[in-house]
């Protein structure tokens, strides 16, 4: 199996996002593989091992993303491709992924259900539409038998078991696999695994970020005495007007 895992390079989800001059000021933050992508990567490594296949990690980003890409190599990807460009929007990123997928004919393309920075959740659907192959999101379990995949897909209020043949795109989420922590051997070998840097294909700009805004902090929390819950009911009715 030829597997492509697409990862985003995002600020650590524990971090508060500082803003400076109306823009996120990410300079001082730690960057990680986006959490959902990390789940997808963990399962991709297992499926690569099971099928004795090849796992390629792909990231659209500038040079600073290479530490994050090396981490994916340390976790178990065999080689890496970095498209040397700012991931400006979902359409741009999906176009780059689809272009590389057309050249390399992967059996499956895995990614997270959304990135934890821009939360678009669009890339997997766009890639599938561009390639004309099916897409399953959110994929919570993925098993392979020959070229047939069985997946659990979350639906509102429950789940479905679905089956489909390769090739496909899957947007993954927990509990598809446990996050993997790179071991010392992985970290050492990652340094010498191939990381190819390619130029982006041209794309018309579909969307542009115009400005940012930080949510207004909530007013001071009104504390209500534990012995007087009726007062809370009163406040929710007459003040907040939500019941």
């Amino acid at each position, binding site marked *: 199996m030829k597997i492509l895992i697409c990862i985003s390079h995002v600020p650590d989800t524990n971090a508060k*996002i500082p803003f400076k001059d109306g823009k*996120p000021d990410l300079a001082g933050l730690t960057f990680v593989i986006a959490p959902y992508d990390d789940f997808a990567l963990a399962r991709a490594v297992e499926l690569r091992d099971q099928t004795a296949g090849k796992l390629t990690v792909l990231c659209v980003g500038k040079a600073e993303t290479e530490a994050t890409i090396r981490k994916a190599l340390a976790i178990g990807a065999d080689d890496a491709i970095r498209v040397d460009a700012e991931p400006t929007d979902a359409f741009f990123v999906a176009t780059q992924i689809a272009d590389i997928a057309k050249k390399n004919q992967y059996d499956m393309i895995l990614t997270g259900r959304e990135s934890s920075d821009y*939360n678009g*959740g669009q890339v997997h659907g766009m890639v599938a539409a561009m390639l004309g192959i099916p897409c399953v999101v959110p994929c919570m379990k993925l098993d392979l038998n020959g070229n047939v995949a069985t997946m659990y897909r979350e639906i509102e209020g429950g789940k479905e078991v*679905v*089956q489909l043949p390769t090739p496909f795109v899957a947007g993954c989420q927990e509990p598809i696999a446990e996050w993997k922590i790179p071991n010392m051997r992985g970290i050492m070998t990652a340094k010498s695994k191939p990381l190819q840097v390619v130029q982006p294909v041209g794309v018309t700009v579909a969307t542009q970020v115009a*400005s940012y805004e930080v949510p207004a902090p909530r007013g001071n*929390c009104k504390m209500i005495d534990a012995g007087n819950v009726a007062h809370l009911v009163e406040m929710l009715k007459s003040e907040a007007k939500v019941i």
Partner: protein
Amino acid sequence: MNVLIYIESENGAPKKSALEAVAYGAEIAKGQVVALASSDTATADLGNYGADKVLQFAVSGKLEASQVAELVAQAAEAQNAEVVIFAKSILNDLAAPMVGIKLGASVASNVIEKPDFSKGFVVKRSVFSGKAFTEVALNNAKKVLTIKKNAVAMTEKGKTAAVESFSPAITASPVQIKETTQKTGDILLTDADIVVSGGRGLKGPEHWGMIEELAKTLHAATGCSKPVSDMDWRPHHEHVGQTGIKVSPNLYVAVGISGAIQHLAGVSSSKTIVVINKDADAPFFKAADYGIVGDAFDIIPKLTEALKKAM
């Protein structure tokens, strides 16, 4: 500018989120407001919230997102719709970007307000899992939006929509559904006006009865924190937070949840937040509108009783 809205329905009626999408479409359209619904969906409410026309397609089992995308793209072209609107849902979140590719449209997800037309077509959406908002300009002639709950006020327009039938060409999907497990009759988390969530403070799954009772009294959906779903006290589809479901109800009640930043990310766009926790230093109180410090096992039954009397 014509607007097309894709309607998800349940038991023959449009989902509430779909009616919100119709209301949103009616607010921004400068031409026809067209709702696209399966032929077994009641049409009265669609007109009432602002649809001029309902385009009905025959139902042939459950559609995959790729099939919804084909259907919607064909309808958008037939109706000369410049803007396509979906209410946020698992299926629509996948169908929307596919429609975007088919139509060559700009796509924006998680839109929380009406577009700002003074600067072109600019929408506000939540980013960094609710830690910030961004305004995004959609440059292409056609636009596809998925809107979050409460993106627009629901106003009844009292229209009666004309009904037309529509026969799209749908390709068979290679995805076969083998089994479906779904709790029916419950209010869906993403659709609920009120959400009651429980955390580790409840000490075990056997204590969820009182959460469910409170939720029932409030006509609310039930949610939970990540540790609770990780420990299998509750199913994953109830997990609210950064890596779970993000909700934006009118009222969010958190019981025994300390308020880790990842949980707050999933609830920060709620209108009103109530936190009940025995630890007065729980960080959640800083992100709440109303708080009670105390033992959930004591407070929740009393609160449920008080609500029953008041509602």
